[in-house]
């Protein structure tokens, strides 16, 4: 280059060329299967569900949506299908709030699904910012608008995944390529939809879910230094507002869709932690879930199940990895209860199960239950 002006043009052209090459690679491989189901390369999936769900909704056949937080993340679709007799798509997102869940469910319902199975935690309604200002959910990818497509095609991280998927398809079975894709470095290591966030068959379930871990978590969250987290974001008015906007409005807009909503079986320690370390928060949760139960009882296309007071599960701490997350064994129990209609909330007495839970929480003594 002889002059700076020509150098500027050359610099911009080379940059544009590199960006265009990355975009072309992303379009051709299409790791999320946003434009078409995988054909030229093997389909690969990510456990980053906020991103992956946008592609799943477009590429997978389903009639039932399964939504929730990390409490509903380990379910296997084949178990859901077998027990409930549906063709499901699991869209659960770890740490998701009500607005994210509602947004993704709405996107899935737009494809024609007729049933939603929805695991609901009280805290998802605490802090649910608008989707536009949500840092974590790529809303434009779901909308499929120009900004979403541009951010997908012009993503260097996605180009890296595309290149890796392409290399795996060109050199199948090469351990040097397969190994890093199974490890933490790459985002699309899974070859089956059913494996997304499911526990692997060789997972150490007793090692991951046992009373010692549950008690350690209890000690941690009730530690005076950290107990403030228990109360973070809890405000009845805000929670009711988010619930009305994100759940009631969505249900009302889809009268032809059956919503099976359930309150999951946390360990009793979750409630006792709030009772001992943050009683005001416990009262807010009681008040809010009473409102939720009464409100959902008014909606004809909702069936609410409350598993929070199922003592044989919630009091057996060996079912838990911490104070809330239950084992795959309990996953299957939840499905069987949903199939059998156990613990369905009676529309005439919507808070009966809550009163039962309150009594359990009041009488439980940690020291007496080693």
């Amino acid at each position, binding site marked *: *280059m002889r002059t700076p002006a020509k150098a*500027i043009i050359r610099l911009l052209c080379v940059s544009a060329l590199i960006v265009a090459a990355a975009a072309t690679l992303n379009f051709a491989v299409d790791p999320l299967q946003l434009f078409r189901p995988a054909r030229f390369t093997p389909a690969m999936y990510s456990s980053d569900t906020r991103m992956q769900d946008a592609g799943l909704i477009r590429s997978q056949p389903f009639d039932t949506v399964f939504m929730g937080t990390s409490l509903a993340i380990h379910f296997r679709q084949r178990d859901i299908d077998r027990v409930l007799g549906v063709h499901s798509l699991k869209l659960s997102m770890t740490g998701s709030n009500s607005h994210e869940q509602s947004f993704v469910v709405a996107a899935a319902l737009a494809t024609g699904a007729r049933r939603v199975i929805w695991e609901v935690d009280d805290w998802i309604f605490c802090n649910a910012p608008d989707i536009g200002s949500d840092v974590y959910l790529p809303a434009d990818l779901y909308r499929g608008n120009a900004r979403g497509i541009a951010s997908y095609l012009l993503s260097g991280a996605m180009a890296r995944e595309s290149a890796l998927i392409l290399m795996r398809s060109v050199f199948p079975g090469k351990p040097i390529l397969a190994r890093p894709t199974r490890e*933490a470095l790459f985002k699309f290591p899974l070859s089956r939809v059913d494996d997304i966030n499911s526990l692997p068959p060789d997972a150490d379930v007793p090692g991951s879910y046992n009373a010692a871990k549950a008690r350690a978590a209890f000690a941690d969250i009730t530690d005076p*230094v950290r107990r403030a987290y228990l109360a973070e974001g809890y405000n009845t008015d805000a929670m009711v507002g988010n619930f009305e906007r994100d759940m009631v409005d969505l249900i009302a807009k889809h009268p032809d869709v059956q919503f099976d909503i359930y309150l999951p079986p946390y360990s009793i320690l979750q409630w006792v932690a709030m009772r001992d370390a943050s009683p005001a928060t416990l009262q807010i949760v009681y008040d809010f879930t009473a409102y939720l139960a009464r409100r959902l009882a008014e909606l004809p296309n909702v069936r609410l199940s409350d598993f929070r007071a199922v003592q044989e599960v919630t009091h057996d701490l060996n079912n838990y990895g911490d104070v809330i997350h239950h084992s795959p064994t309990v996953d299957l129990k939840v499905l069987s209860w949903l199939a059998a209609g156990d613990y369905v909330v009676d529309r005439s007495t919507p808070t009966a199960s809550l009163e039962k839970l309150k009594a359990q929480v009041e009488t439980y003594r940690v020291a007496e239950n080693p």
Partner: protein
Amino acid sequence: MLFNSYLFIFLFLPAALAGYFLCGRLGNRAAVIWLALASLVFYSASNWQFVPLLVTSVAFNYLIGWLLIASKLQGRQRFAVLTIGVAGDLLVLGIFKYAGFLAVNLDAIFSAGLKVDILLPVGISFYTFTQIAFLVDAYRGHVAGYALPPYALFVTYFPHLIAGPILHHRDMIPQFEQPAAKRPNPHLILCGLMIFAIGLFKKTCLADGIQPLVSLAFGSGTPTFDQAWIGALAYTFQLYFDFSGYSDMAIGISLMFGIFLPLNFNSPYKARNIIDFWRRWHMTLSQFLRDYLYIPLGGNRRGAVLRYVNLMITMALGGLWHGAAWTFVIWGVLHGLYLCINHAWIRFAPPVAPWFAGAANLLAMMVTFLAVVVAWVFFRANNISSAFHILSRMADPSHTAFGRAEMVQGAFVACYAALAWFAPNTQAIMGYDHKTRTVGEGLGAWPMRPLFLYASAAVLAFGILGIQQYSEFIYFRF
């Protein structure tokens, strides 16, 4: 509007540049007005509700400055005008930035049920400080009369408006008034583009890349010894690459307009002591605090003890400038303490033997870096008890995970450390010299060599490909 957004890179910046050079054909003043208006558009893209506040602040300070410079006020009258100006600036800053903090503390003491919730205007700390410096210099008689358009541009100039560098009127306004800067200079545009590319890469690829590891220490879980260190170090490097990336982008953008901005970073983690660190980290803030706080307090002119007191006051207020929270005050006090120890060491410690100099320098660099990391824990933590909790985990090797994930994460952090410690910084690569207003000169013809050009193109492309949906700069909140 973010520098690391498609809207800025592909629309705003080209339009602002084209308009600037077109207006430059009409005259110097037209280009200055165009750039000031473009800066307001830039600011209003995400802070439209605070544009009137910014405009009012500019008008108020210009008026006060005019009274100090052009009117024939004497002695006490001049001081009264200066007092009104500075107090007005500090009052606005206090209301928007510190009223909530004050209310929380009063409420904690008196249980008065006070609660103040005011949205913080982005960049208010930066444009308030630049204008206070202007008023103080006007009072001291160091300022010639400025016309309103270049003054307004000096305050609102979009490359620095939101997160610095903190500009000085004596440095900037003469540059705005130079007609030569209104004609496109391909050499400056090319160098500016390269510096912008490096900054964008630092932000989108390096700072955003390491950001997920920060939650290992600062998330809601209880970290182990190694996780706490990985998280704290990750934040240490994230903050550096984020803020120095922003400063590089600001310098690069400004260079395209023919304006040289002052340097804000000079490889701070290579510092061998805390005094050296503050000559390398957020350099324009350090200079401001020195010239307009530390020296007016007396500096080192009234003995050793008062020097230490002045250092502590300066750094505590410097901490409070970063944010209305006790964690920032503690961060500032900690650095004040470090500086006092450093000055005392220089005064009382014996000189290092020449044969030990190499090892001593390495040791000094490590101790300085560790001291900085410890202070960053307070800077980042949600509250003081969380900071102590994280530090207690960093001091407790009996709880260590060190699994496969921690090993990978540790290696990741080590790569960042190698970059921060061993890689040349942007100004060294580009030969940027703010004082002599030169860039790329010392390198001879080699910026034009194809390999360097292609490497720059790749850095720009990777920077663009690294743009995420939403990734704000950390210093925006200060």
